[in-house]
């Protein structure tokens, strides 16, 4: 051993030389002891040191007992943070983070927990379904083998080749179609056909027959509650809410620190192509307006920028015909920057899937009328999107979406300015509806993502002030079908990416190659939703999503994700009506309301009789019993029928009323606008803030101050006058209070104190609460004006608020609304 210098020489104090203990001491299983030299320095033996040494011994033993007790009270899987906990972590140590796996295994062995080894290899699953899947796999394998055998046999026998030769003799032109196939395909695109999603892999094909999965479906299934298998929403499998509770976490991430991202690939995109004038004519025909109902995008400066393709337009789109146009949906329209040397322009219309079909039909009809016909394409399954919101959203995107190496980085182009925008935390600082488009590289090559550089403050201010991207934005490649397909097809497999990462030097990302995919990307800032929207080709959404979810936010943690519930919550906190949930006047909103009615009734029926509200016997005071209208529904028919007097069917697919813009409604009410005849009744959305305690929920009835009953009216108004909790020092003393001397003697002071303690607090006398006897009654049904569509405790406001829809019928211009 001495001859071979490579062999390690074992010395006596190897343990002392070792820098790190091989088996680190578990604090709950070691008892610390002080060495003699510290307990008795100088080696003298006196009584005080002796006693202290024994006292320390007692202390360390008691600590050890306490630590052992604590160590047993929490199992390994209970030490996992809430969002990493898996249900089967208790009996499957593999479902626990790596650092706790050994501990979990030991604990399971100690108390005889059966460790279940999941037998669901290759995704077949367990139980009856699993067995069926295994059988099906075998069946399909056998079928495939039989087919191959048959083919081989025929080849050997020569029947197939004979057939082939015969075909070639009869139709010498048979080869040509293969050359023309590309052209044939292009020509076929002229007819506007509803798109069909790509056939998914065979393992998942059976589950996507009646619905489509989002590109990030599997990622979401492990972390969120999805729509039930047989009840997809709008024929997509959409995550409804996160698996763990996240109401306050989402609120904080969106407003204070962090970011929240949604996979919005279910938003439908319609592509328009044609001459600029014809597309403009089409949009005008469909009455494209903005939130306030102004269609003046041709006059405004921002309208010009939008036409050039450097801004995004968000607004409402209406049906083409009708004296009073009827709203279809909220849309976002993006133009493509005009390519030099081409007269054709392209545009995208993005719309919610619930309103897609009606919009599609309208657009097709409108497109056929235009003189140079507008080509309409359904791009629902070609373009996916991610929306991200919060102070950390800009830095996340800047780090994950990095410009591909092929794009030139001359100054002021979107790729070069992209990295400077990382430090923007408030989206309002950016120009309204600004957009950026360039090609990005595969985010998997730059994985794990690094924190974005947020130090370039001065440059950011200049960029924000001048926004040179308006001049330097080139035609976005995402409008081009070939670019999208090329990116999707050239995405390398995860294995090849892992190989490249292994070959790169440690700490560096792999070098870019010319064969890397260039993913076309378009990002815009949505003012309506207060978020970044990133448009990507469908297959490229998943790598970008994973990159976003792994990004280390500068303030700590990772970006969160959200489901439908979080989306509605975010809109609700800003008191913005979200389409389609808060717009029952549109077809989509009405369909949603019908759906929700059924669900609410079912929920109510499920609950046992003692634990649910009996709507039929609610006492409304004045010997009225039972809730007004259908208790599980926002009973619009009842509200607007009573005023109208016309027949309104309950189960119509189309709402018998329309959605009015809030501005229009307020104009009508205050009598400012000269409006045409309001033939059909309508609803408009309003925000409700609670004065006293109580949280309004969906379907809550809203009444106005009673018009006929003056006494009731004054009672209600008196509730508004809230007593001030702090009495002003200049208040004149009340007559029934005897003026007291400054320093009353002790017995008087104690008497006063006793009186104060026994007296109930003053505020309860003045303001009535709902449970008091003298609380005013609910007004009659004639004063019903609307229903709440979304209501909750609003964390952004610190008070319960609601987004409601109020009805405005023929009586609209007659009634007096008191704005209290």
């Amino acid at each position, binding site marked *: 051993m001495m001859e071979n210098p490579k062999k390690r020489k074992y010395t006596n104090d190897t343990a002392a030389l070792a820098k790190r203990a091989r088996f680190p001491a578990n604090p709950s299983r070691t008892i610390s*002891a002080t060495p*003699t030299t510290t307990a008795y320095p100088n080696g003298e*033996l006196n*009584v005080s040191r002796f006693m202290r040494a024994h006292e320390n011994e007692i202390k360390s033993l008691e600590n050890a007992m306490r630590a*052992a007790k604590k160590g047993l009270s929490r199992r390994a899987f209970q030490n996992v943070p809430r969002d990493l906990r898996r249900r089967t972590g208790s009996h499957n140590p593999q479902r626990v983070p790596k650092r706790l796996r050994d501990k979990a295994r030991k604990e399971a*062995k100690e108390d005889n927990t059966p460790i279940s080894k999941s037998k669901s290899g290759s995704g077949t699953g367990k139980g009856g379904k699993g067995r069926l899947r295994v059988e099906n796999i075998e069946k399909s394998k056998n079928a495939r083998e039989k087919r191959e055998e048959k083919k081989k046999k025929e080849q050997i026998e020569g029947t197939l080749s004979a057939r082939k030769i015969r075909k070639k003799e009869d139709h010498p032109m048979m080869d040509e179609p293969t050359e023309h196939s590309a052209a044939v395909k292009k020509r076929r695109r002229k007819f506007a056909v509803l798109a069909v999603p790509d056939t998914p892999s065979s393992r998942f094909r059976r589950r996507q027959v009646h619905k489509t999965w989002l590109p990030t479906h599997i990622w979401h299934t492990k972390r969120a509650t999805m729509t039930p298998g047989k009840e997809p929403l709008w024929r997509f499998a959409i995550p409804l809410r996160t698996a763990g509770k996240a109401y306050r976490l989402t609120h904080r991430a969106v407003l204070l620190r962090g970011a929240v991202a949604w996979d919005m690939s279910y938003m439908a995109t319609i592509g328009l192509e044609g001459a600029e004038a014809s597309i403009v004519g089409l949009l005008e025909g469909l009455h494209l307006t903005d939130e306030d109902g102004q269609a003046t995008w041709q006059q405004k400066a921002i309208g010009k920028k939008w036409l050039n393709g450097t801004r995004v337009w968000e607004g409402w789109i209406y049906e083409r015909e009708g004296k009073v146009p009827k709203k279809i949906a909220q849309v976002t329209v993006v133009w493509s920057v005009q390519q030099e040397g081409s007269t054709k322009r392209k545009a995208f219309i993005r719309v919610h899937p619930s309103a897609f079909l009606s919009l599609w039909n309208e657009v097709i009809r409108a497109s056929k009328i235009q003189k140079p016909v507008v080509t309409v394409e359904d791009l629902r399954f070609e373009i996916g999107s991610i929306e991200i919101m919060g102070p950390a959203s800009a830095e996340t995107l800047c780090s994950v979406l990095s410009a591909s190496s092929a794009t030139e980085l001359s100054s002021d182009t979107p790729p070069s300015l992209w990295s400077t925008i990382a430090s923007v935390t408030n989206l309002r600082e950016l120009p309204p509806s600004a957009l950026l488009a360039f090609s990005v590289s595969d985010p998997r090559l730059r994985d794990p993502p690094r924190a974005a550089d947020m130090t370039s403050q001065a440059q950011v201010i200049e960029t924000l002030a001048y926004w040179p991207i308006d001049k330097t934005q080139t035609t976005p490649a995402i409008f081009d079908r070939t670019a999208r397909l090329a990116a999707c097809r050239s995405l390398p497999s995860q294995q090849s990416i892992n190989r490249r990462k292994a070959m790169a030097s440690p700490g560096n990302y792999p070098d870019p190659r010319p064969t890397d995919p260039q993913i076309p990307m378009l990002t815009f800032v949505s003012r309506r939703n207060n978020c970044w929207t990133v448009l990507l080709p469908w297959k490229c959404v998943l790598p970008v999503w994973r990159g976003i979810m792994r990004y280390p936010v500068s303030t700590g943690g990772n970006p969160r994700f959200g489901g439908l519930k979080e989306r509605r919550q975010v809109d609700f906190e800003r008191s913005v009506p979200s389409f389609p949930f808060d717009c029952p006047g549109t077809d989509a909103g009405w369909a949603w309301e019908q759906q929700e009615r059924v669900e609410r009734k079912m929920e109510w029926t499920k609950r046992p009789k003692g634990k649910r509200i009996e709507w039929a016997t609610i006492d409304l005071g004045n010997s009225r019993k039972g809730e007004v209208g259908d208790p599980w529904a926002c009973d619009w028919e009842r509200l607007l029928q009573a005023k109208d007097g016309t027949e309104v069917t309950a189960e119509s697919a189309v709402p018998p009323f329309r959605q009015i813009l809030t501005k229009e409604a307020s104009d009508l009410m205050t009598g400012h606008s000269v409006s045409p005849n309001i033939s059909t009744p309508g609803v408009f959305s309003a925000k409700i803030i609670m004065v006293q305690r109580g949280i309004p929920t969906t379907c809550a009835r809203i009444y106005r101050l009673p018009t006929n009953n003056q006494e009731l009216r004054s009672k209600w108004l008196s509730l508004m006058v809230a007593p001030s909790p702090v009495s002003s020092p200049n208040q004149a003393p009340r007559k029934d209070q005897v003026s007291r001397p400054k320093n009353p003697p002790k017995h008087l002071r104690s008497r006063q104190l006793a009186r104060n303690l026994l007296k109930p607090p003053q505020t309860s006398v003045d303001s009535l609460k709902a449970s008091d006897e003298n609380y005013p009654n609910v007004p009659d049904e004639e004063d019903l004006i609307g229903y709440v569509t979304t209501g909750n405790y609003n964390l952004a406001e610190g008070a319960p608020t609601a987004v409601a829809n109020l009805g405005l019928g023929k009586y609209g211009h007659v009634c007096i609304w008191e704005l209290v």
Partner: protein
Amino acid sequence: MVRVKNRYLVVKFLYPSTTPSSSSKDVVPQLLQLHQPTPDAFHAGLLLRAIRDGITELFGDYGMGMASTSLKINYHSPATSTAIIRCPQAHYQMVWAALTYMTKLPKPINTPVVVQVVRVSGTIKKAEMEVIRRAKEIILRAKIEQRGGADNATGDGMVGHIVKMVERRREEQVLVRVEEGEEEDDSDE
């Protein structure tokens, strides 16, 4: 799965004085001397090795095999000369014997020592509690003797007081019974 059961031995290392001293002045140092701290060189590893060597010497390879399956020094404090040793339940007596037969600390130190197994328990919690109880007792004794340390039987401390009371009663009883008869003198003395 059958549980592997262990026994925990609470062990004290005592250093009785070799020179006999009967003077009452050495009472305090006598307690300290008996329970004096062990030198640091005698760490847990050395103790483990000593036990193993002892078992091999007494019980051979068989004993070594049976006893060292779960032999572990849970706690070893040289400052208070206390240790808690874990050993398999069926063969704890072997370990006890090996400890008893230790007359001096192993090679580098070589001081004579008496190893006393104070308690055997099935759980470490009871062993820890025993150590705590003994430590408290020793502290109390040391405190008493420190207070009555300066002058023991003649002092103002508690011990001195008791000694005085005993002496006084003895004197009274002797004085009382002298008058009654001689036979009772013997029994009183």
